[in-house]
C-alpha cells in the first residue's frame, strides 16, 4: 500500500509531463456528494452526515494510427472515513490494434456480464466497494490482454499480475457492517500473497438473437471470505485461490431480454460450488402515449452452498431482485431506478432508489436512497439506511 502510494504520484507526474508535450484528449468529472443517515449507527461510526468530493479524469492520447495510451486517475476525499479517502489509477493502459488482433498492457478495467443485479462472471477487476453499495466501481487491474475477433467468436486472454485487495469502509465509515473489516490484516491462501499471477479467458459470440459467452479464471478470488478474528473482534478478509468456469447468455426477443450467468468454482479452502443469476428485463416503450419508457427487471440469485447447508459469506444465496426503471426521454435525460432485493429465506429486503437528471449541459444531479427493511435480529446493517445526493460536473 505504502509503496503504491509513493509510486502513484510519480506515475501521475510522468503522465502529466508527457501530457504537456502532446495532444491529450481529456474528459472527466468532479463530483460533490452528501450523505445523510437516518439513524445513529450501532457501531463506532457515530455520525449521521458525511460529505465528500471525488474526481475521475480520463486522459487519452493516440500515439500512432494503431496505438494509444489512456490514463485515468481517480480520487476521493471523505469527511468521515479515512478508508474512503483514496486514490487509484482506474486505467494506465497502452493499447495497440493490429490487423486481426489487439493487445493491452498496464492497469485496466474490464466488464463481463449480462445481468443487472450481480455479475458473477465479472472476475477481472477488484471492486472499490467504499465507493458505493453495488459493485460497479472497480480498482484498476494490472494486466496483459490479447484480444482477437474471429468468425467463430471474440477471444480475450488475460495475464493478471498483481492482485488488488478489496476496499472496505473503515471504523468511521458508513454504511458498513457492524463488525469492522480489518483491511490491514488481510490473509492469503497463496504464499505469493498479492503477487500471485492470475489468468482469465473468455470467448463470446453473437448468434442472431443470442449473445453467449464462456469463460475460465484461475487465481486469487476477488471476493474474500470474511473470517471473525476472536482477538480483535473484527472481520479479516481471506483471499483464497479458486478455479472458475462459467457461461453467460442473453437472448433478445423484441422487448424481452432473457439473461443468465452461471459459474462453477473449485477451491481448496472453500467448498466447491455453483452460483447462478438469471432473469429478464422487459421494456414498455412510450407508456400511456407519452415518451416515458418503463423497464421491468427481475433476477434470481442463487448459491448452491445454501442447498447443501454449507456456511458462506455470500449475501445472495437465494434472493430475488425486482427493479423498475423509468426513462423520461426528456431533454434532461431524467431517469429513476427503483429496486427491491428480497431474501427468499426471510432475511429481509434491501430497498433502493436511484434518480438522475441533467441540469444545464454540464451538471448531473443524482439522488440515491437505500433502506434495509425487515432485517433479522443480528443484522449487520440494522441502522445504516441513508440518502445520498450527488452533483457531478462533467467536462
Amino acid at each position, binding site marked *: 500500500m505504502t509503496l503504491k502510494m509513493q509510486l502513484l504520484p510519480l506515475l501521475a507526474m510522468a503522465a502529466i509531463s508527457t501530457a504537456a508535450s502532446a495532444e491529450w484528449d481529456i*474528459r472527466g468529472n468532479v463530483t460533490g456528494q452528501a450523505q445523510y443517515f437516518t439513524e445513529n449507527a450501532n457501531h463506532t461510526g457515530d455520525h449521521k452526515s458525511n460529505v465528500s468530493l471525488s474526481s475521475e479524469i480520463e486522459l487519452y492520447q493516440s500515439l500512432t494510427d494503431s496505438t494509444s495510451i489512456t490514463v485515468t486517475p481517480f480520487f476521493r476525499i471523505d469527511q468521515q472515513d479515512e478508508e474512503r479517502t483514496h486514490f487509484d489509477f482506474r486505467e494506465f493502459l497502452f493499447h495497440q490494434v493490429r490487423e486481426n488482433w489487439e493487445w493491452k498492457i498496464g492497469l485496466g478495467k474490464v466488464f463481463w456480464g449480462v445481468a443487472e443485479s450481480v455479475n458473477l462472471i465479472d472476475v477481472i477487476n477488484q471492486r472499490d466497494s467504499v465507493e458505493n453499495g453495488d459493485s460497479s466501481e472497480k480498482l484498476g487491474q494490472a494486466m496483459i490482454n490479447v484480444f482477437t475477433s474471429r468468425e467463430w467468436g471474440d477471444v480475450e486472454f488475460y495475464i493478471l499480475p498483481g492482485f488488488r485487495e478489496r476496499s472496505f469502509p473503515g471504523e468511521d465509515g458508513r454504511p458498513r457492517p457492524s463488525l469492522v473489516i480489518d483491511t490491514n490484516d488481510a490473509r492469503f491462501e497463496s504464499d505469493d500473497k498479492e503477487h500471485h499471477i492470475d489468468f482469465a479467458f473468455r470467448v463470446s459470440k*453473437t448468434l442472431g438473437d443470442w449473445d453467449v459467452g464462456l469463460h475460465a479464471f484461475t487465481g486469487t478470488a476477488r471476493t474474500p471470505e470474511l473470517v471473525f478474528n476472536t482477538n480483535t473482534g473484527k472481520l479479516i478478509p481471506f483471499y483464497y485461490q479458486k478455479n472458475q468456469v462459467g457461461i453467460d447468455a442473453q437472448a433478445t426477443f423484441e422487448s424481452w431480454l432473457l439473461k443468465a450467468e452461471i459459474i462453477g468454482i473449485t477451491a481448496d479452502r472453500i467448498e466447491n460450488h455453483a452460483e447462478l443469476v438469471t432473469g429478464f428485463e422487459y421494456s414498455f416503450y412510450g407508456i400511456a402515449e407519452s415518451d416515458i419508457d418503463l423497464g421491468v427487471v427481475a433476477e434470481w440469485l442463487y448459491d448452491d452452498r445454501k442447498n447443501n447447508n454449507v456456511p458462506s459469506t455470500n449475501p445472495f444465496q437465494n434472493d430475488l431482485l425486482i427493479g423498475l426503471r423509468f426513462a423520461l426521454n426528456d431533454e434532461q435525460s431524467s431517469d429513476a431506478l427503483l429496486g427491491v432485493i428480497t431474501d427468499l429465506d426471510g432475511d429481509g429486503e434491501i430497498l433502493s432508489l436511484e434518480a438522475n437528471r441533467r441540469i444545464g*449541459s454540464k451538471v448531473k444531479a443524482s439522488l440515491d436512497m437505500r433502506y434495509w427493511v425487515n432485517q433479522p435480529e443480528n443484522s449487520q446493517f440494522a441502522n445504516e439506511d441513508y440518502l445520498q445526493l450527488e452533483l457531478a460536473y*462533467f467536462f
Partner: protein
Amino acid sequence: MKLTKLSTAATLLIAFGATATSITALANTARGLEIATAVDEQNDGFVDTTSTMQMTLVNRSGKKSERKMRARTLEVPGDGDKSMSIFDQPADVQGTASLTHSHAVKADEQWLYLPALKRVKRISSKNKSGPFMGSEFAFEDISSQEVNKYTYEYLGEDEFDGSKVFKIESKPAYKHSGYTRLINWIDQERMISLKVEYFDRKNAPLKILTFSDHQQYLDKFWRAGTLEMINLQTKKSTLIKFSDYQFKTGLTDKDFNSSALKRLR
C-alpha cells in the same frame, strides 16, 4: 425489376377487364415503389461514410440545448446498413456509443456502449417510436432507410421551394412504428427527399421534417447539411447540422461489430 413485374401485372389486369380504380391504385403503388427505389439507388455504392452531427433541441419557450455526435455508416449490399453513433455532448454521456445492424424485414440488432462501466449491452431494437436523445427525431427517423421497410403510393406532382417534386405516401411495413403514414416530397431532378410529413398512430399530423443545404459528394451522393424537425403537436423542434462528411474512408465490418464499441474514441 419489381416495377417491370408490376407493370406487367397491370397490363394483364387491363386485359382481363379489371375496374379502372384498381388499375389506378395498382399503378400508383407501382409508381410509388419506383420512385422510392430510384431514391434508394441514387445512394447505391457509397460504401461508407463518416460525419459529425450537431443537434439543437428547441423547446416550446425557445430554450435550446445542444447535442453533438459522430456518425459512421457502412453500406451492406442486399441488407440494411450498419451504423454507429458516438456521443460527444452533453458531457455526461460523452463516450457513449450505439451500434445498429439494420435489416429490411427482420428485427434490427442493437448494442449500447456505456463507457463508465466499459460495458457493451445488447438492447432491444423494438423502440422505434421513442425520442432519440430527447429530440423530436424518433429512432425510426434516424435509422437506415431501406426500400422494403415501407409500402408506397404515388400521390402526384407538386412544387416545393421552387423545385418540382413527386409526392409519395409511405406506410411503415415494420412493427412498432409511431406513424400510420409519411408523405415524402421528392425532388424530381436529383431524386432526393426535401420534406417529410409524419402522421401519428391516430393519423393526425405530427411532425414536419425539411432537408436543406444539400451538397453532392463524389459527383454522385447528395447529403443534406441541415435537417429541421418541427413537432406540430408539442411545438418543439430539433435542428440537425451535418458537417465533415467523408466517403469511402476504408471502414470495414470489423469496425461495426460489438467489440469495436470498446475501442472507440
